[in-house]
């Protein structure tokens, strides 16, 4: 920090030396003093150089540190935001906030603040020095600088709104690209390359127009600032010339005006540059702020019961649970009551879109329902997320894996690193042993983004292995056998039954065979409980259940014909 005044004051001092030298020359003092003076100037300048290095190193370094801290904070924020936020936001837009917007703010804070700070020292410092030479000229010189402030005040709102448009069109570009690339299979399958390119071109063109529009406002700002600056030389020329004719100032003094004017030039131009930067940074800061001020309604309670996941038995109870997605016309789940004793099995069935996944999400508190979901009788406002989620393991319906090694993906579930034997055990339970043995890199094989190098069934089974690696009290399976063949399915079911011993298992499925042995089954219909009970009871109570059961049996008989 202290570097900035040192650097600036050195700058002013050097100019004064130069000016005094000219005055002495004009007074026809011999040129001998010059050598000594030049030596002194170079020495001081070398010292100044060291400070200049420190100044830059320090300020730009700080701004980079700030950048990563901000990025980290945004990242952590995103990790804490609930699913309904992520469902509705576009990742391209978010990525753009973490890149383009953060960069804009950083530019203001780093290089921007460096120039502002040095301008803050330089401008008053120079004016003070010049004032002592000639107050009139100084005053006349300083007036146009006020114009800079005026221009900035006038133009900033315009720059601001235009740069918001630029940032938004940039986000649209990221979004388009991201979506098109992640949907590459569909794009190619339908030969949509041209279509996508055209849409992208539109987004890009929009950005171009927004940028051009913005640059016009920036141009005005630029012109205003340069004009103000150039105007400052007018009094130097006229009044200064007059004063010289009057002999009230010497040529060296005029030089000081000119040279300091020149040096003031940099900070002032920089201010102009910041004048352009500032609204941009402001627009970006607003977008960042909007993200940071998103609140998560899913928070740890203020004083949770002190209990870690180990102490959980696994009893679940749902009382009058309803959930409605934000913006949805009706609830996706409504009025569900259930008690799932510890270590028992709950099956959830129902037609497509009946709310099975939603209900399972509520168990892990991925969304907060009306009504209450209790674990071991503890209501959510007393249960910390760490305890709740620590006790759960979840196999999502769409098998998501990370582009990491196979091992890392399984260990993702576990609290600590797994020994090779344990790992092999889970892989075996998920019926993946034979296939992982085929991997060229063994378990350290990289599996590509979302696990693209695995088959659909392999991905799904890997998700099961990941969940088992967690050694959970409550195991949640969302249609987790949909992508495997019947033989593997039968085998997996058997393994799961074994693995499920001593745990509470909640399993959603379309094939009734999967849930028929459950201690309790809930049949959902349009988000409401259609019927609830054991397999036999449901056959009695629910038409839908009976029909589906019959259909699945009938198909068999039909085929056996």
């Amino acid at each position: 920090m202290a570097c900035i005044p040192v650097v600036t004051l050195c700058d002013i001092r050097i100019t004064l030396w130069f000016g005094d030298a000219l005055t002495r020359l004009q007074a026809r003092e011999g040129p001998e003093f010059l050598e000594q003076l030049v030596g002194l100037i170079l020495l001081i300048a070398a010292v100044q150089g060291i400070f200049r290095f420190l100044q830059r190193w320090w300020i730009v370094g700080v701004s980079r540190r700030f950048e990563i801290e901000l990025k980290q904070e945004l990242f952590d924020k995103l990790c804490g935001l609930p699913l309904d936020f992520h469902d509705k936001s576009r990742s391209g837009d978010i990525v753009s906030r973490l890149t383009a917007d953060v960069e804009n703010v950083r530019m203001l804070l780093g290089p921007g603040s460096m120039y502002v700070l040095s301008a803050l020292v330089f401008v008053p410092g120079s004016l003070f020095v010049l004032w002592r030479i000639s107050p009139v000229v100084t005053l006349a010189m300083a007036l146009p600088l006020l114009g800079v402030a005026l221009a900035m005040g006038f133009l900033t709102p315009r720059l601001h709104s235009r740069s918001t448009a630029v940032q938004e069109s940039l986000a649209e570009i990221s979004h388009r690209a991201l979506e098109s690339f992640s949907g590459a299979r569909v794009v190619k399958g339908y030969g949509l390359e041209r279509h996508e390119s055209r849409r992208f071109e539109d987004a890009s063109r929009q950005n171009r127009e927004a940028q051009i529009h913005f640059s016009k406002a920036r141009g005005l700002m630029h012109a205003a600032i340069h004009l103000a600056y150039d105007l400052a030389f007018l009094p130097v020329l006229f009044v200064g010339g007059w004063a010289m004719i009057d002999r009230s100032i010497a040529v060296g003094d005029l030089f000081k005006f000119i040279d300091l004017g020149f040096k003031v030039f940099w900070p002032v131009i920089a201010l102009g540059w910041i004048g352009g930067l500032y609204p941009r940074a402001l627009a970006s800061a607003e977008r960042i702020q909007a993200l940071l001020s998103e609140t998560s309604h899913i928070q740890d309670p203020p004083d949770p019961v002190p209990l870690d996941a180990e102490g959980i038995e696994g009893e679940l109870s749902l009382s009058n649970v309803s959930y409605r997605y934000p913006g949805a016309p009706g609830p996706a789940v409504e009025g569900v009551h259930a008690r799932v004793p510890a270590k028992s099995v709950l099956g959830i069935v129902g037609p497509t879109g009946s709310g099975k996944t939603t209900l399972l999400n509520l168990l892990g508190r991925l969304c907060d329902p009306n009504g209450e979901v209790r674990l071991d009788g503890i209501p959510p406002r007393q249960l910390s997320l760490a305890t709740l989620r620590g006790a759960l393991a979840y196999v999502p319906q769409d098998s998501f894996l990370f582009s990491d090694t196979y091992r890392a993906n399984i260990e993702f579930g576990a609290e600590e690193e797994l020994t090779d034997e344990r790992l092999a055990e889970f892989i075996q339970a998920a019926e993946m042993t034979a296939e992982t043995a085929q991997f060229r890199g063994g378990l350290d094989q990289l599996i590509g983004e979302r696990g693209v190098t695995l088959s659909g069934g392999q991905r799904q089974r890997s998700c099961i292995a990941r969940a088992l690696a967690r050694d959970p009290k409550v195991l949640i399976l969302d249609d987790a056998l949909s992508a495997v063949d019947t033989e593997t399915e039968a085998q997996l079911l058997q393994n799961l039954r074994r693995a499920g011993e001593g745990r509470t298992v909640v399993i959603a499925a379309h094939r009734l065979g999967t849930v028929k042995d459950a201690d309790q089954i809930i049949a959902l219909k349009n988000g409401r409980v259609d019927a609830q009970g054991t397999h036999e009871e449901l056959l009695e109570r629910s038409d839908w259940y009976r029909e589906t059961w019959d259909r699945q049996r009938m198909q068999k008989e039909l085929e056996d014909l």
Partner: protein
Amino acid sequence: MRAPEKNARPTEELDEDADVVATKAWDWAVLRRLMRYARPHLRMFGSSFAVLIALFGVQLCGPWILHNAIDGPVTRALEASEAVDDGSVDVQPFLRELGFWAAGYLGLILVGALLRYKEVSQLARTGQFVIHDLRSHLFAHIERLELAFFDENPTGSLVTRVAGDIENLNELFTSGLVVLLFDLVKVLVVLGLLFWVSPELALLVALLTPVLIGVSIVFRGGARRAHRRVRAQLARLNGYLQEVLSGMRVVQIFRREERVSSRFGERLRAYLKSNFRTIFLFALFYPIISWVTLVIQASILWRGGGALYAGTLTFGDFILFWFWLQLFVAPIRELGERYNVLQSAFASAERIFDILDKQPAIAPPARPTPLPDPFRGHVRFENVTFRYGDGEPVVRNVDFEIPPKKTVALVGATGAGKSTLVSLLLRYYDPSEGRVTIDGVDLRETTLASYRRGLGVVLQEDFLFTGSVRDNLVLGRDWVSDGSLVQALKASAAGEFVERLEHGLETEVAERGATLSTGERELVAIARALAGNPRLVILDEATSSVDSATEARIEAATHRLLQERSALVVAHRLSTVRRADRILVMHRGELRESGTHEELLNHGGIYARLHAMQFRDLDGKDDPTG
């Protein structure tokens, strides 16, 4: 533990070597390529250049006016007053002359302001036009690349190229290239003017300038490498961010926020470290340049002071020289900043050209055989073997055909290679051996557009785009009519749930269809496949997440629709494939059995076993054999 051999190797895993040898290309090569994009906009570049020249003129004139004022009226007034001892000289004429110069100066700076405005807006405009072209070109090129490219490159990093890297290049065009070229002109012109004012001092300047340039050159090498690393790290960072965003559900439910956050932190720190290298370089660069500049100025004072004293140089000349010297040094001093911008932009340009240099591996031949529209849909796999990359074959010697208007089903254990066959049929990849033909034409011989146009595809992991449900069904295919939409919605059973949606077909769908249930997404995908009136329908596990009542209805409806078309259906649930004209059983990459449902049951092989398994639970028996 064996070292991981990387099959799908994320290209962003940068080992330092790969990074450094990325290109040996000298700036000019990159620059020349960039210039190609500038060529269509030469006129704009021309007018930018004109603005810069005019502005330069204004900049030169300012000091000249000052010089004339000092050496003119001011000096003459001083001389006149010295001549008259009592100093009572009439200064009016001198002041009037001074006023004249001041007015000239005022006019000049007004013109200057106008030019400044133009400078910014015109340069930005030029740059934006080039950038837009380049960006669209890059995107279209990526779209043309084969699927394996997308498997290998993290999406986030590709996005960074079309967004971040291109944005970075923008700087090159708006504040880099033109200005840089122009700076060169400026330096030369001003040097000439300096010689005109004072040859002796100018010679001094000319002798010292190479030091300045030398310093820049020394820094260049380091800066370029450092920037390259920064850009690559940034892409990696964004890739990770994007990945975590798409897996947020898993991250949260497994309570791995801290773990992913610390991994993100690691990447951030790696990025910061690379950044510090560039910061250090430039923190060093600027002070050195400033100091050398001061050496030049000081020596001017030293030699010039002597000349002033000796009277061989006027004060006006000295001040003019000083002013112009600033104009001379400024571009050289700014060379540092421009270099920073330029190096960063070059690093980005390299990453962009790196992609543009990739030729699509799956492209039509020079003289393709176009398929008739509509084609008949006779598919043949002739002895097809396929391996991903250079791995083991995943599919071996597969040989089968789908006659026109017939439905062929593909069943088999998970990982047997069914989806791979689908990928081959879609020509996501080309077979390693053997060939796939449609109506007797090798897929490699025809154009992708004429082929894929006739397809209706449901992939195992299908994908919905943001936009309305209708957009997702139509997918920009102008031949999808409202009539065929209605029919497709009905056949896929998507109609009912779409009706229940608040805005029906116009309901907005979130990214990847996140606001629909998995089953609903499948229904939309099926409707989409049927809507285009395809000749060849490919359904890979299209109803795996749909309840059996709906599934049965879809099966009945599509059965009717498929009478008219060829179809390849992959399914684990045998009930969906029972009615196929032919069922193929895959096992470990090979075709093991083939026949109708009855034939295969009677055969008593893999199919019969799978079949028995499927219904075991429903019967309550443990080992029934059909």
